[in-house]
């Protein structure tokens, strides 16, 4: 029996390989990004319908944060499911599980991949939203706070979302199950994220403290839930 010629694989390299694979596959088909991007555009259209009767005096900035996060939540659910359907398709997940890779590494790679795609969609949506709904209004708070809030919120969405999507993709009625599980679990994070984003957009007195307080809450959520997801992933993916 030939002695296997192996250098041994470090977790980091495996992580990078899975991430790279997912990104290459996405770049090749653009499946996720186009569907997510299109979905966000459609959401913006619906917003326009919802706001159509509000009159020109209505300050959209008051609900801008909520509208933005709403769009991101629904778009992310779409993306999360798709990212895992790939693996199930040809039984690739089994091949992955057969290889000597630690399950948490798979979790991190998938979660980071989902985060990257979500951030890309957010980066495109933000300016679009501002142009469509907030033209001519001034930004009350500091603009740099907004990307920061998006990042912290998106980390939570991607992390917990990856765990929940791994569960939901194995059920009947995938997308539906994901929404049923995802939204209540995301609720506290979204509250905090909307709070922070809103503080940044409105810039009311005391907004800096409010922003950082909400960011701390969102960060706390991320830390706790990501730890839990990381620990639970092994069980869920092996089921």
């Amino acid at each position: 029996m030939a002695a296997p010629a192996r250098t041994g694989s470090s977790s980091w390299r495996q992580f990078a390989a899975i991430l790279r694979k997912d990104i290459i596959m996405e770049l090749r088909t653009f499946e996720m990004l186009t569907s997510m991007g299109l979905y966000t555009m459609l959401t913006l259209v619906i917003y326009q319908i919802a706001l159509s009767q509000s009159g020109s005096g209505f300050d959209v900035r008051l609900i801008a944060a909520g509208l933005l996060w709403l769009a991101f939540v629904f778009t992310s659910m779409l993306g999360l499911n798709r990212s895992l359907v790939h693996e199930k398709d040809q039984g690739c997940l089994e091949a992955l599980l057969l290889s000597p890779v630690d399950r948490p590494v798979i979790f991190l790679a998938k979660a980071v991949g989902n985060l990257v795609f979500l951030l890309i969609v957010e980066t495109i949506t933000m300016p679009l939203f501002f142009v469509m709904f907030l033209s001519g209004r001034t930004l009350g708070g500091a603009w740099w706070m907004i990307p920061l809030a998006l990042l912290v919120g998106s980390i939570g969405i991607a992390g917990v979302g990856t765990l929940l999507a791994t569960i939901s993709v194995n059920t009947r009625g995938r997308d539906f199950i994901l929404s049923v599980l995802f939204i209540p679990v995301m609720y506290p994070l979204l509250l905090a994220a909307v709070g922070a984003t809103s503080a940044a957009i409105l810039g009311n007195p005391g907004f800096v403290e409010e922003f950082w307080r909400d960011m701390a809450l969102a960060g706390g959520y991320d830390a706790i839930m990501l730890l839990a997801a990381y620990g639970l992933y092994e069980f869920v993916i092996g089921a």
Partner: protein
Amino acid sequence: MDRKKLTYIVLAVACVATTVGFLLAFFVAAPAQMLRTLDSGKGAIMGSGFVSHPIDFGQKIFYFHVPVAIASFTIFFFTAFYGVRFLMTRDRKYDTKSRIATEVTLIFVVLTMITGDLWTRWSWGVWWTWEPRLTTYFIMMLLVIGYFVLRASVEDEEKRAVYAAAFGIIAFLDAPLSFAITRIVPAGSEVHPVVIGVPGGLEGSQLAAFLISMFGMIAFGYVIYQLRYREERAKERLEVLKAALED
């Protein structure tokens, strides 16, 4: 003492406790101080709202609402606890325990919502308000319903148990986070957070009623859990026998 006897004893205790709590709440406990009011236009609280309720009748619901809420959260802990045990041992009985605990949680959460709703209706004239505790329990209700929806959508038994355990743990972690965050994030300038709380502490008589009620509710929770669990275990044993006969 065997489990069955214990259950019946606890049931008796629970009935006594809740009855005593009920009586204390209505006849002995001092009427509550004015709670913090809404500062929107619905400030008629001070006026006609309270005039028609000379004792703050609505406040008495507090003696049921909060105990039931606390009981539901206590039982929810067991959903997560047994979930963890299941993942560690893969023993089906822990999955059953976790599921039953979640069922009981659902009952209590719904009771929390109903009593909370009655309270807001009696005290503030509105059927619903997005105040921290009600909101959190609404989310908890959605989480628990989600747990059952998830279970129903997985065919393979073992997979179902693993997923349910994982989600149960996540859901249980989410509940206190919800509570904390809904309290701290102010709801902006338009919507008014209504704090259903008790300013200051509880007086002696109120405290007694409250604690006894709470104890009674938790005891009830335990009883319902035990009865349901025994029912389920009997079913399971039947299944095993049936399967053995088939061979």
